[in-house]
């Protein structure tokens, strides 16, 4: 199981400014290890964000996203106390979901 994501959601009016840091190697399948063997591809393919259980943001990405990916996006219609969850899935079928409560921090 992968390490937890770091999610920060701050409200600006009714728009939640979301930043997320995921812990993932994002191997491209182009890199060789010290022994000269190609390191197999291992990267996040899909990302979904839900606000109180309803999908609000979706992404399909490739191995060109940097290691330990950072994404930011803005969700409309958010209030303090709303639950924002983010899920990613990689090409090996690994998944991780983490949740934050908007406005609880800061």
């Amino acid at each position, binding site marked *: 199981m992968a390490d937890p994501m770091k999610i920060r959601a701050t409200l600006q009016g009714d*728009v939640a400014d979301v*930043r997320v840091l995921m812990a993932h190697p994002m191997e*491209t399948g*182009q890199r060789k290890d010290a022994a000269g063997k190609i390191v197999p591809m291992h990267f996040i*393919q*899909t990302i979904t*964000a839900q*606000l109180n259980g*309803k*999908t*609000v*943001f*979706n*992404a*399909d*990405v*490739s*191995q*060109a*996203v*940097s*290691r330990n*990916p*950072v*994404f*930011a*996006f*803005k*969700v*409309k*219609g958010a209030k303090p106390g709303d639950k924002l969850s983010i899920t990613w899935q990689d090409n090996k079928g690994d998944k991780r979901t983490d949740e934050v409560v908007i406005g609880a921090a800061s």
Partner: protein
Amino acid sequence: MHDTRRTVLKGIWAIGALASVAAAGLLSPGRAFAAWNKSAFEAKSTIDAMKMLGVANAEDSKAIEIRAPDIAENGAVVPIDITSAIPGTTSISVFIEKNPFPYTGTFDVSQGAVPYVHLRVKIGESSPVRVVVAAGGKHYMAAKEVKVTIGGCGG
């Protein structure tokens, strides 16, 4: 004689392809469009990837703002901010033209997100970063050149 053989082979391939498409459709109804677009992600040129996504006819637009460094010292982590001012924007797609596989991703903002996204990407060599925005069934495009310093002397 060779021609006939070719035609026959092609026919077999076509039947096989159709059969597998049908099988995939039966096994996962409704997932066909939502699934990760493997063929577009594996396309080796931007235009091929765009064709597979059905966005090759995108017209240029000044309403898409791409914020990325003009010169990136570290090609492994290049921050990009994209904002679309086109009304009714539903998705934002990113292509890095000179990467081995240019199609980098699509961000769907149609279900309650603002048409904005920030991401960090790997760029192998200096290349235009191309952004295609889908809005109201049409496609719009903008590009920004990012130079990557080679040799790692940037420190």
